[in-house]
């Protein structure tokens, strides 16, 4: 069984970190996992994304054309990846940054007002964790607490004070449940 996840957004949104958290968790669960970023031009700016592949077999390609799931943290990512998600796959969208709904009806999707939630939790930087929570809550590839455990283990000690906020963010995200476009329309 192989699950492929792309997380995409602006440079400062913690896209790469969210992917790494996922990868750590998968590793700690004894699974095969790859994490690979898009590494842009030799200069700054623009968007970022990473692909995480989790599998029980040695992983072939760390890149995929049609991922099982996508987390789109901003509008450009939403626009770019909606069409790529595998049929039956999952699309998690940061509702705070988009102005339209999901068009495809053959995938599951979740709209999460992640910025708002993060701000409510009191730390804008938690946006990525809210979305990660939504992803995990609807994907079943890794239990939420695996991610929490990994955060504790791999986050440098000086950041441990953020753990409660992280947990809250993940859980608030996980509370959102995926729907299919048909449902959305209705």
């Amino acid at each position, binding site marked *: 069984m192989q699950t492929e996840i792309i997380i995409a957004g602006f440079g400062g949104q913690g896209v790469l970190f969210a992917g790494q958290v996922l990868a750590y968790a998968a590793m700690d669960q004894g699974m095969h996992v790859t994490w690979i970023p898009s590494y842009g*031009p*030799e*200069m*700054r*700016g623009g968007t970022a994304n990473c692909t995480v592949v989790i599998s029980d077999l040695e992983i072939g390609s760390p890149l995929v054309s049609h991922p099982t799931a996508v987390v789109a943290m901003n509008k450009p990512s939403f626009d770019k990846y909606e069409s790529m998600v595998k049929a039956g796959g999952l699309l998690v969208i940061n509702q705070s940054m988009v102005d339209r709904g999901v068009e495809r009806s053959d995938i599951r999707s979740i709209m999460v007002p992640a910025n708002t939630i993060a701000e409510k939790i009191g730390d804008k930087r938690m946006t990525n964790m809210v979305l990660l929570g939504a992803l995990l809550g609807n994907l079943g590839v890794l239990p939420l607490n695996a991610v929490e455990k990994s955060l504790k283990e791999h986050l440098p000690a000086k950041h441990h004070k953020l753990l409660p906020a992280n947990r809250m963010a993940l859980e608030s995200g996980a509370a959102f449940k995926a729907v299919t476009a048909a449902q959305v329309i209705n």
Partner: protein
Amino acid sequence: MVQTTLEEQIVYSRPESFTDTQTHYCPGCTHGTAHRLVAEVIDEMGIREKMVGVASVGCSVFAYNYFNFDFVQAPHGRAPAMATGVKRVLPDRFVMTYQGDGDLASIGMGEIVAAAARGENITVIFINNANYGMTGGQMAPTTLPGQQTSSSPNGRDVEVDGFPIRTAELLSTLDGASYVVRRSLHDPKNIRMAKKAIRLAFETQKHGLGFSLVELLSVCPTNWGMTPLQAQEWVADVMVPYYPINDFKVHPALANIKA
């Protein structure tokens, strides 16, 4: 009859030697300022159609997209050699290289010294931003003692990493170099002085006097981890003391040429 009226005039607008292209530079990066000054000078001298620019490898690699004249792009450090090739077959064109400090003072030191020694009749715009901007802020030959970079994480240790190179001073020891000065881009006064120097550098070339180089102290807010304003202050407070703003070599014939 003489009539006095108030009339609105354009006192500054985008130089013609620029294209209508957004730069890829980070906000506040004075690569852009240096570009602008070059473009203004070229406009003023009316030599746009005679220019061949040589871009180097560094953040300014895409300089060719921003200037509205012919451009080639050299391998890392080799712009002076490419410029030599161009100039030798087209002696009546104006040839400029635009190089960073990693490009010119590290990998390209051999080429710049040789070009200066040959008195190659080209103009070099040399951007000293105390690090390798493009590759993510590694130590450059110009990185200051104690300065943290991604390849000197504990600050440049002169015992191990050596001392910064004062390029303009070094090149001014060469008989072939006719105009070698340092300027800075961190405030309006210095920017004005920088423009004058760039003008004189191109005048040096125009009058066939040989090699000219303007070293420009420039910010890299992104890799320095500063805001643009903080970066300008850092230039004034830390860079200028180490890299004095000065004329290191001025060909006597330039005295008669106004910039």
